[in-house]
């Protein structure tokens, strides 16, 4: 690493010196170094390396705070381990805060004090971003989103082709009235996707289109801005996060939609549901829900009918950290799944105690940490195996990607599905063409209608 300039250091330290509220000061002063958080971190559990103890990650940032912002740290730095921000420190921060933490927040819940470790790690990432030290692989994902409008750089032509292909499939099944509306202004819903869907999992789009069709929903997708992800949440550059969030915000306004529906992406949902209004410094002028909540609304309101018997394999749920622990969707996810499958088992632990799959925090983008990512995923692989489930459901495409890789690495022999996919598999649509097909699939239907 090149020698840090004074300007770089000043920019990073400014984030500590000028807190916007009491949150940062609180959490930087609260850790008592008890080390009891160690076993709550998947990285530490798998590697047993002390550097992964969450409190040490906090201390990387807190030691700088003490050095530059407290009297004790300035006068007697050796007493409180107040450290200078130099190249060695910066390297350590990059390795631990980007490469050794998914900001899943599991340690936060179990911290003896209540230090928001994930938040402090995020502040550390912001400091690194201010110094221009974001890992290149992660930064390129953000740059791609800023440059092309989606983080995978999918050309609009290719995207439209994929959507049209899925629309043909939909029409084959349900007739000409079933379609995937593109760029239609004034529709109630603007639906967003994780770009992994058009790129690798187009059947996810088809699944959601079936649900919209069954619910007779007024919806559209914008070819200009359909990307639900915002890797600005992970690279720590709030200005870039704001630009991405603004683009989606402006698209909802431009499309005259009343409801922004966030596709199945944990961090994307978090970024757009909880963080974006703060990035933009104003509340949304429209409604915003995750697709899981929307599907549940359809089930509760009787707008879609599900037949559990169409999903008979044993199913388990992987709770995405950003949707459950950090998003409050624990019950919502279970509501949808329990209405769509006949055999369900929980992982241990699950819900707000669940372990991260290892793909969060931008890890899937940072290829330099691939080995560590798959190693940390061993806990999730063991959890899945212990359930005996044949299908893992998770409403997050990053989790889908990571669990797919775990499936391959640890030979789990499972199928991985999103909520939309499992719900679409259980859909009963009063459509002759479709009913004939479903009748062949299941002789013993028990319709379940709310």
């Amino acid at each position: 690493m090149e020698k840090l300039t004074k300007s770089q250091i000043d920019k990073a330290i400014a984030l500590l010196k000028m807190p916007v509220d009491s949150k940062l000061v609180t959490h930087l002063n609260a850790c008592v170094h008890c080390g009891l958080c160690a076993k709550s971190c998947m990285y530490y559990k798998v590697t047993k390396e002390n550097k992964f103890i969450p409190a040490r990650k906090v201390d990387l940032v807190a030691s700088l705070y003490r050095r530059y912002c407290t009297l004790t740290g300035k006068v007697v730095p050796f007493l409180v381990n107040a450290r200078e921000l130099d190249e060695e420190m910066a390297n350590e921060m990059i390795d631990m805060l980007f490469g050794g933490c998914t900001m899943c927040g599991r340690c936060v819940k179990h911290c003896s004090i209540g230090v928001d470790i994930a938040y402090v790690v995020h502040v550390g990432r912001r400091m690194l971003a201010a110094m221009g030290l974001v890992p290149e692989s992660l930064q390129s994902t953000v740059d791609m989103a800023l440059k092309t409008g989606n983080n995978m750089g999918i050309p609009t032509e290719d995207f439209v082709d994929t959507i049209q292909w899925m629309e043909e499939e939909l029409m084959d099944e349900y007739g000409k009235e079933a379609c995937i509306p593109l760029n239609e202004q004034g529709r109630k819903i603007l639906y967003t996707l994780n770009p992994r869907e058009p790129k690798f999992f187009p059947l996810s789009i088809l699944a959601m289109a079936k649900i919209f069709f069954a619910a007779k929903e007024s919806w559209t997708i914008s070819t200009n801005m359909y990307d639900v992800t915002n890797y600005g949440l992970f690279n720590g550059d709030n200005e870039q996060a704001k630009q991405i969030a603004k683009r989606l915000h402006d698209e909802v306004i431009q499309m005259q939609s009343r409801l922004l529906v966030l596709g199945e992406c944990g961090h994307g949902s978090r970024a757009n549901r909880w963080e974006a209004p703060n990035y933009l410094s104003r509340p949304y002028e429209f409604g915003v829900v995750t697709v899981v909540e929307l599907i549940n609304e359809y089930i509760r309101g009787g707008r879609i009918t599900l037949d559990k018997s169409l999903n008979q394999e044993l199913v388990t749920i992987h709770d995405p950290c950003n949707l459950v622990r950090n998003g409050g969707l624990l019950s919502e996810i279970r509501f949808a799944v329990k209405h769509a499958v006949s055999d369900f088992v929980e992982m241990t632990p699950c819900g707000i105690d669940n372990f991260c799959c290892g793909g969060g925090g931008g890890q899937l983008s940072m290829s330099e940490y691939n080995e560590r990512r798959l190693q940390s995923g061993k806990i999730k692989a063991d959890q899945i195996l212990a359930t005996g489930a044949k299908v893992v459901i998770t409403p997050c495409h990053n989790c889908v990607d990571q669990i797919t890789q775990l499936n391959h690495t640890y030979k789990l022999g499972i199928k991985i599905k999103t909520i939309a996919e499992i719900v679409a598999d259980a859909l009963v649509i009063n459509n002759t063409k479709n009913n004939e097909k479903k009748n062949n699939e299941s002789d013993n239907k028990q319709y379940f209608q709310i």
Partner: protein
Amino acid sequence: MWWYQYLSLAALFVCISACIWHFFRLIRLGKPKELSEKSGSIMRAEVYSYTTAMLPAQKESAYLHIPTYVSGILFHIGTFICLFLFFVFFFVDPLVFRDWLILAMALLLISLFLIISIVCGLFLFFKRIVLKKIRTLSTLDDYLSNLLTTSFQLVTAFYLIFPEEAVIYYYILASILLLYLPVGKLRHVVYFFAARYQLGFFYGWRNSWPPKKQK
């Protein structure tokens, strides 16, 4: 009053002033600025944060580390008893307690509890030295904070039993502890409560706390 009592009074004033400064700095900085649409109940989450979320069954830091957890709880109880007695002794001389059998017995019991608390403090201190995992995480401040607090408990126990002999050491040590409290990690006496508030706010806003019961 003797000079060492004046000294401890001055230290107490500095300590309380500094803690108030820490507290009001947090108030001045304000609660988290949140512009997203609230989904849950902050009030219910705050209550959960300060109560159920702190129960041993809810935290791996407790149920996976029972000896450390119990030691920590006893050590903190011992510390708060000592701080309480410190205030009491400004108004009542411990020698007076000897005239009342029941009070003398109470002091004896407190002394016995403090011995247990001191053992817990020393256990935590040596654990920090012996276990590499925690040693690599520790600063000089961590050791000093523990030693000061444990010593204060020790000298309080002595003071309860031998008031005349221990009085000067008691007040001097109390002064050192009070002066050190706001600048070292002992200031978590303020920030612990603030951290619980912040967690309640964060998880309550997003409807993650209190956790939903699964049907």
